[in-house]
């Protein structure tokens, strides 16, 4: 059910994004209603991944929770890649370069590296229990890095060090803000649907693995 709502929501959001007046001094405004929601959804999905892994570790050790955590981290990673790619296109038209070592850009790159390392760690551990324990700890650390990298680090730099506008999310006019958060909700729902489907596959894979071990 959620997938129908999410898709319709995103469809409406897309149209809203295109009919919005040009925001501030940005060229190619509609991309902002895609790029920013994906970046925020990425963070949301990473937080959810950490929540599922904590649920695995401290509330019941249900392998399905671990599978969900993996799914959310994976989909969040893809969302981050898309946000970074669209951000680079956006940066090319507005700031004149695909990559300008903007603190926010580097922060997201660092976050993506963290999750790449997380997947590497999962691949490099043989024992299922150990694998999931290490995953939990590193997933929580990943959220820490995501917050520090993308929101805290730029606070210590001089105010104009980041090319990202500082308070678009909270200080724009109501219409712009509505369009932005409408799109955030839509993409977040759509990505959560995708993550749920991915989790179902992981759960099936786990059961098949179990069966191989039992030898039936």
């Amino acid at each position, binding site marked *: 059910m959620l997938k129908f709502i999410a898709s319709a929501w995103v469809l409406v959001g897309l149209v809203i994004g295109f009919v919005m007046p040009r925001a501030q001094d940005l060229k190619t405004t509609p991309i902002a209603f895609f790029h920013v929601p994906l970046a925020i959804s990425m963070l949301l999905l990473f937080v959810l991944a950490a929540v599922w892994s904590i649920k695995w570790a401290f509330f019941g050790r249900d392998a399905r929770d671990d599978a969900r955590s993996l799914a959310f981290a994976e989909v969040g990673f893809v969302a981050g890649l898309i946000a970074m790619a669209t951000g680079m296109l956006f940066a090319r038209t507005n700031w004149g370069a695909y990559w300008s070592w903007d603190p926010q850009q580097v922060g997201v790159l*660092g976050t993506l590296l963290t999750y790449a390392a997380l997947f*590497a760690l999962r691949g490099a*551990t043989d024992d299922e229990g150990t694998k999931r324990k*290490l995953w939990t*700890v590193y997933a929580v650390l990943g959220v820490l*890095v995501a917050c*520090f990298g993308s929101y805290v680090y730029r606070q210590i*730099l001089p105010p104009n060090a980041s090319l990202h506008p500082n308070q678009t999310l909270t200080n724009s006019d109501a219409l712009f803000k509505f369009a932005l958060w409408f799109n955030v909700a839509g993409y977040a729902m759509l990505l959560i649907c995708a993550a749920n489907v991915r989790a179902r596959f992981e759960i099936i894979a786990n059961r098949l693995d179990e069966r191989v071990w039992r030898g039936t």
Partner: protein
Amino acid sequence: MKPNSQVFAKAAFAVFQKDLLAEWRSRATLGAVALFSLAAPITLGFSLAQQKLTPEAQGALLWSVLFFAACIGLPRAFVKEEESGTSALLRLHFGSDAVFWGKAAGQMALLMVTQLAAIPTFILLLGARVGNVPLLLAVTVGGDLGLALSSTLIGAMAAQARGRGALFPALAAPILLPFLATLGVATGAAFGARVDSTNALMVVAAFDLALVGAGVLGFELVWK
């Protein structure tokens, strides 16, 4: 409560002492880390001899060097336990909290000793001007604390993965990226860059605190 916390402190200290003693007998890690932290600034000095570096760049370079030096020595703490098969004994004898704090104190001591040599060498070879000594000291202690805590947690994780700790730099680098960047900014301020160092110091302290929390909770999970 009191006897309990005394027992804990004693256990943590025992782990710390054991690590120091083992290190002192072989001096393998200490030598490797100290040599690297001397060699790296020399290499940098070679390739950057004709450049005029800004204080910001010097601060960032200092922490990159210190991080990579730490990467050589710090994962050893757990890898050698796994290799010699003593980790099971350690698990039996001490609670995970005691092991965590003991190991972290050992890492911290190792870092401090090597930096006693490494930081002055760096400053001399790269021609940095230390404008604010207390700030540099504060940043160093805060940074070492973060490096020690995170390397204890991540080192224990990496030692259990395939390849015994080979994964450590790959795991630690992205986690510490915002932390190292902040340390670089604060150190740049100590070298005379015009940035607000109070904010940076507060971020360092916040990251340390977050690592204490993550370490205490996470280590129990990883270690058991």
